[in-house]
């Protein structure tokens, strides 16, 4: 049977990759993909902990909620990306710099 620590290692790797993606990508959609990685790393943690401990299924329940919220978040984010694209004709975040002084 696969040990708990391997799940934790994968989730830590996912989290780091997500943060790396958010920090390095300039395309708004790619940044959102990084955010998804972060949320899913937390999900993996929750489910793994729930499976390997005597704590019951609280963690799995939490993961289901997180999946739903993540879907809602992406829906809102993509709508905002779309309106930004209508105004700027690009989704490159470096071009969204009017507010910086």
């Amino acid at each position, binding site marked *: 049977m696969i040990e708990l620590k391997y799940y934790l290692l994968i989730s830590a790797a996912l989290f780091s990759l997500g943060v790396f993606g958010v920090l390095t990508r300039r395309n708004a959609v790619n940044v959102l993909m990084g955010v998804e990685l972060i949320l899913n790393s*937390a999900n993996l*943690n929750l489910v793994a902990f729930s499976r390997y401990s005597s704590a019951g299924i609280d963690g799995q329940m*939490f993961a289901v*909620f997180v999946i739903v*919220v993540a879907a*809602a978040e992406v829906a809102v984010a993509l709508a905002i990306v779309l309106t*930004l694209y209508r105004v700027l004709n690009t989704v490159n975040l470096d071009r969204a710099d009017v*507010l910086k002084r």
Partner: protein
Amino acid sequence: MNLGNLDSLSFFYPELILLGGVLLVVISDISLKGLRVRINPLLTLAALLLALFYTLQTDHGSAMTLFEGMLALDNFALYFKVFLLVAGVLVLLGSLHSEELASVHQGEFHALLLAVTLGMLLMANSAHLVMLYLSLELVSLTSYIMVGYLRSDRLSNEASMKYILFGAVSTGAMLYGFSLLYGMTGSLDLFAIRDALLAQEVGGFNQVTLLLVVVLTTAGFGFKTAAVPFHFWCPDVYTGAPTPVTAFLSVAPKAAGFAILVRFFLGGLSQPAGEQWGFISGIDWPLVLIVVSVLTMSLGNIAALTQNNLKRMLAYSSIAHAGYILMGAVLLTGTGLKAMLVYLFVYLFMNLGAFFVVTVIFNAEKTFELQDYNGMFRRSPFLAVAMSIFLLSLIGIPPFAGFLGKLYIFGAVIDQGLYWFAVVGALNAAVAAFYYMRIMKHMILENDDRPPTPLQISPLNRALLVLLLVPNILLIVFWAPIDRWTANSITLFGGL
């Protein structure tokens, strides 16, 4: 006392009313074509006031949890419910005559305002990590949309984009922290987490992991309260958002963020020990928060010095005020918590007032630039005097309410013997006086060559300005009820 699902409903009226309000506003928005412009604000106002009425009626006897331990109903939660509903009412009234919002259809705006208020009410009550996360996301998602409400406006879009990317990452980090905490303690209930941490005497836990949990969760709360180093979104978002939304963001979600910060750290990671909370040994989170507080107020005040855009300057000023409010939270005493509640209460009126004057001036002049405020005193003495009172209150000059907040905060800090902390706070207040006075100088002393044309203020806006001025002037005289109310409000479920 733990109430089951059905028994809890009778203590859940305010939230149910707000939920019903959201649905009603959406329905009236799509069905009443001609009347909706009039009906929607009235429906929203009615829902907020009715929720406020039921909140004030709530007599819960002693602290208890609702819905099988999902929500905690205690005096602390009641304080924040009243606070957030009053903020909702004031922001709604302030948004009615705003030229920025008048250019777009406002139906969804009112529904969103009710939804975000509902989210914040739940946030102040959460006693369970799932509830905490869900309510925080409800507040975040709705405020992303409110910030980007001016669809064809480039600044509004950009602000909303920055807000959602920053928000998604910080709440994601917070969630990762929650998952680690769940793994360590095997529970999602805040009080069960505390008991698990206590039972294992913390020494049994990996100290690095615990510290990681504290840092990651602070990212989520820091984002909501705009505390350094999670403040980067704040100036841009506040500048780009429609001004009534900015005013709202600078007060209400910030207060709700402080509510969950206190509930998480005091309810979850520390235990009551008489007048003080003994925090669970091994986690030196008060030191972390003291550093965050000092950085927040210093950076906010210093960055505000060089701003020439009023909204951006007030954005940095609100970062600085988050630092002052945090001073009360990190003390781990009842006095500190009470000081924090008093400060939040006066901050509500002075900050909303300052933003509201900015809205009124933008209505007439279409500008946020400081040099365009020249000669405002000759054009509208009432507005200039009102703004001066709000600014003097924000500085903390004695006859006005802001002084009361500063007095309580610094008093609580000195009470704990943290003199250097109080000195840093006082120095910061002096720095802040410089840029607040600069606004007053432009409005009152500097005149341009143009002949002074009187500034148009709608009667509703004038009445609201007076309504906001009254607490700023009178609270210092009638401080006793505030003192009693906040002293009652520091009872946390499972806490002090």
